Structures are given as structure tokens and as C-alpha cells.
């Protein structure tokens, strides 16, 4: 075990759903569950890294202190992190940096959200210099518009079909059936997807993930603390890499919420695009390769985006994701199951909690505790996640 590994001592989640309650209620359930799972007291936590929510007022902007106060002030150090969909992973990175720097041994990483109904819209007010506001105002460019453009490229360039996209939903709906934390636990057939209304062509309602309430928390510790507590670290999941790299100029893929890409007029595109670079930075840090991965939890904001991730993760070459899906390799029982939790397809997105939830799932899988969705014999897994404005993450966990 590397000195730079972090031990995942405990994980906990509040089930995903849509209730509209105070986000801290969900967060407290996840926090208590993670503490219990870790077998430690709240008073043992020296550092709280909170992932912010921007739709729940001031307490959401200072998530670290919000939860530190809610659990009872102990003098613990805190940070609050906002990185769009990657906020949870950035919080993990903050906790990791603090532990590896020797500032603390035990940290809590926590994120919770309550979401409005329907499309995510920009924060209110008239803000004519904010590209996130302007993309709605001038273009009506909702998030599904961007997802749909990626999907359409797969169709026009690689011959992907609506049935392929639907098959991702069918797979994930089966994976999530037995997951007690998933919001949608209903098996979907190809026809269910194809009969659902088109939102942004070619994507249909069941191709696109919902927005959800939910919370996830984890307790991560230094190797020394965990060894002292557990005696042996055999079979205990460890964080091997956390990648939070930004794009390299020029960014040549039109990403949320941009009006335009960077220009390639004077600087050639980088060898790896942003999403690939997120994953490869994680592989390089862990000293591992795609073939070492037994599973992946990826950000399936849409069914078609899950296929893009197969390629960004190096599970197959560009243009081959549909073939990999059809082969069954990414289904539980296959070579490298993707989204064994059921993914965003079964959860919906609870932004600050989602990247943490991905790591919680890998942890349960690696401990053999993923009842009803277990990837047998899994030794290593990777997460992949991307949000607005050059935020993204990839985390590798192994035993």
C-alpha cells in the first residue's frame, strides 16, 4: 500500500428521492450512517469537507460548517467546496490533501441536496454577462441540449441507434432494482424508453437523468489511523487516486454551458480531450490501467453519455462503445460492469452528493456488500464525473 493511499473507513447515504425537505436532514442521515459504518464518534472527526449546494440558500454555500454545526460544534476544521457536479470529489480531494499533508488523520466528506422540479435553470436575476444565464435566454440551451448533441454525434458518426441508447437504460434499470438507495427501482424495457416523449432530439425522457434529493457521506482516514484502529487493512477499500484536472487549451468539444469552443487557430488540440484527461490522470496517479478496472461508476446524465464514458475511460476505442454494450461486457456479470449501482439513471442527480455516492458504491462493491448488484470478486473500480465550467473528477478505489 502506498503512503499516499487514503483508507475509506466508512460510507453512508440517505436514499435518493424527491421530497423537497431541508437538505441538511438528508445530510445528517448520511453523516450518521458513515460514522456508524466507520465505527467512530463524531468527536473523532478532525476535518469536515462539505460539498456545496447552490439552490438552498446560505447554508448550502457553507456546507462544511453547516454540517459541523448540525452535528454539534467540536472545533473541527472545515472546508466548503463548489465544483458543480464534481463538488463531492473536490471535497474528497480537500480532505485527502489535509490528511496527506499531515494536518489531520480523520475527515468526513459530505454532500446533500434538495432540487427543484423540471429542468435545471440558472440562478435567478437578469445577468447578461453570465454565460449560464445567457445560454437559456438567447438559445434555450438546457442541459439536455448539450447531452443531445453528444448523442447525435454518436448516431451520425458511429451509427448508434435509439435502441442502443435505450439499452443503456434497460441495463442500468436492472442494476438498480435491488439498490435500497436508488430512487427509481423499476425495470425498463427498450419499448418503455422508445415510447417516452422526445425531450431534446434524439434523447427521450427515459434517456435523461432526473434531478433528485439525496445525501452521501464518507469517513476517510490516514493509513496510520486505520491500521491502529483495524489492525490489518487487508480487504479495506483505499482511495488510490483522485483526479480533478481542468481542461487543457484549446478545449475543442462544445461543453455545458458554453456558446463556443476554444479556437484551434494557433494552438493544436491536446492529445486527450477534457473527459479523457480526467480519467487518465487518475490511472497515472494510481499506476493502473483500464484493464485493471473491474467496474466503473460513470456520470450517465444521459444514456448516450454513458457510452461516451466507455471510450473516455479507455474501456474501448472511440466508436466501439455500442459494440461493448451489446457484448454484455458492461452488464453485471460481464468483464467490466458500468454503473452497477444503477447510475444516475436510477438515482437522478443530487449534485453535491453524486460524486461521493459514486465512491460509496465502489466501497460497498469492494467489500462485497452490494446486495443484489454485486460485481463478484471486484478488486478495483473507477468513477468518472463531469460538470459545468471545466469541473470534473475521477476516483480510483481498490482493495
Amino acid at each position, binding site marked *: 500500500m502506498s503512503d499516499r493511499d487514503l483508507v475509506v473507513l466508512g460510507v453512508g447515504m440517505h436514499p435518493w428521492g424527491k421530497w423537497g425537505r431541508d437538505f441538511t436532514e438528508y445530510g445528517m442521515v448520511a453523516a450518521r450512517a458513515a460514522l456508524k459504518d466507520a465505527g467512530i464518534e463524531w468527536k473523532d472527526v478532525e476535518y469536515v469537507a462539505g460539498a456545496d449546494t447552490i439552490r438552498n440558500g446560505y447554508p448550502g454555500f457553507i456546507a462544511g460548517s453547516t454540517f459541523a454545526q448540525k452535528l454539534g460544534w467540536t472545533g473541527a476544521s472545515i472546508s466548503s467546496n463548489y465544483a458543480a457536479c464534481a463538488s463531492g470529489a473536490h471535497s474528497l480531494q480537500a480532505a485527502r490533501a489535509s490528511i496527506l499533508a499531515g494536518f489531520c488523520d480523520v475527515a468526513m466528506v459530505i454532500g446533500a441536496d434538495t432540487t427543484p422540479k423540471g429542468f435545471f435553470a440558472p440562478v435567478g436575476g437578469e445577468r447578461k454577462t453570465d454565460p449560464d444565464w445567457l445560454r437559456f435566454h438567447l438559445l*434555450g440551451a438546457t442541459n439536455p441540449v448539450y447531452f*443531445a448533441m453528444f448523442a447525435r454525434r454518436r448516431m451520425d458518426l458511429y451509427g448508434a441507434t435509439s435502441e442502443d441508447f435505450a439499452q443503456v437504460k434497460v441495463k442500468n434499470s436492472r442494476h438498480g432494482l435491488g439498490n435500497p438507495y436508488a430512487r427509481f427501482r423499476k425495470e425498463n424495457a427498450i419499448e418503455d424508453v422508445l415510447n417516452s416523449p422526445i425531450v431534446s*432530439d434524439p434523447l427521450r425522457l427515459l434517456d435523461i437523468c432526473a434531478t433528485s434529493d439525496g445525501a452521501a457521506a464518507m469517513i476517510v482516514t490516514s493509513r496510520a489511523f486505520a491500521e491502529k484502529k483495524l489492525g490489518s487493512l487487508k480487504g479495506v477499500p483505499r482511495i488510490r487516486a483522485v483526479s480533478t484536472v481542468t481542461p487543457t487549451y*484549446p478545449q475543442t468539444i462544445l461543453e455545458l454551458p458554453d456558446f463556443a469552443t476554444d479556437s484551434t*487557430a494557433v494552438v493544436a488540440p491536446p492529445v486527450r480531450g477534457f473527459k479523457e484527461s480526467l480519467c487518465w490522470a487518475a490511472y497515472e496517479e494510481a499506476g493502473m490501467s483500464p484493464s485493471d478496472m473491474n467496474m466503473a461508476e460513470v456520470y450517465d446524465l444521459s444514456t448516450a453519455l454513458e457510452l461516451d464514458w466507455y471510450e473516455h475511460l479507455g474501456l474501448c476505442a472511440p466508436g466501439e462503445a455500442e459494440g461493448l454494450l451489446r457484448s454484455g461486457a458492461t452488464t453485471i456479470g460481464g468483464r467490466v460492469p458500468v454503473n452497477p449501482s444503477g447510475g444516475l439513471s436510477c438515482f437522478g442527480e443530487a449534485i453535491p452528493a453524486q460524486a461521493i455516492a459514486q465512491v460509496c458504491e465502489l466501497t460497498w462493491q469492494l467489500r462485497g456488500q452490494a446486495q443484489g448488484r454485486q460485481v463478484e470478486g471486484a478488486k478495483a473500480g473507477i468513477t468518472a464525473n463531469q460538470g459545468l465550467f471545466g469541473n470534473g473528477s475521477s476516483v480510483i478505489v481498490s482493495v
Partner: protein
Amino acid sequence: MSVSAAGGVARVPAVEGWFTLDDEPHLIGCRCAACGTYVFPPRSGACPNPNCDSEDLVPTPLSRVGTVWSYTENQYAPPPPYRAAEPFEPYALAAVQLEEEGIIVLGQVPKGIMAADLKVGMPMQLETDVLYREVVDGVDTEFMVYVWAPAGPTAAKSIGGGS
């Protein structure tokens, strides 16, 4: 595409300084005076090229024609601050690659041209269309936005020639 310009109707851009409203409209981007890279939307301040420390971004017209990078069609009304007409009419959007500038720009497609009419690689040309209409200080006003329309044969030819 035609936009009615009946008497008494004022016509203003829905966002200032991003495109022209003449008969052959074009986007206005910026070009770095030092390294020559392009940006859109136009802005002042730092050049985005990390190898360049210039602060001199000069407004410049962008190519009117390009090719489709990708496209979609909104079947549901986007939420505010989009001002959707009622009843809502589905419309398409296209991201168009400009060869000379090396950038891809997202825009609406004129009403009535749908996703089924588009294809990756198809030539497109910049036009303008009414985004919404509102009475401002007693003046009936059309707020205009740039749109990407399928290019005619002449425009399509000029794409290969670097216009």
C-alpha cells in the same frame, strides 16, 4: 428565412455586440492582437491561450459559413430566462464549426427547420431571427438573435475556399 420589418417595429439585438443585423449578418468575435487566436462570445481582457499574456482582444467579424458539428431539437419549452412563445413550437439548435477560426459556435436554427433536416458536416450560414417581441417604452420591438440556417450552394462552396 424572412423577418418582417413592418413599419413602426423597432429591431434590436437581444444581446449587445455579438452579431450584426445587416443583410449579410455575421458574428462578432475577438481576435488576440498578439497570438492571433479567436474567442466567441466577444469579450475584453485576457487572451485564453495559456502561452500568451496579451490583454488585447480585438473585435472581429467571424466567418458567416461553417459546417454542422452537432444538432438537436427542443420538444419542450426551455425554462426562463428563455421567453418561450405560447403555444410552444419545437425548434432546432445547431453547433457549427468555423474552419478558419477553428471554433464551434452554438446557435438556434430558423423556425421550421428541424433536426430531421440537419446532418453532421452539413454547410450552414449565419442569419438572424426574432427571439421575442415586446413593447418597450411604447415601441413595438423585435429582439433579434443570430441563427444558423442551412447554406445555399454559393455559401456552401465558399466553405472549402476558406471564404
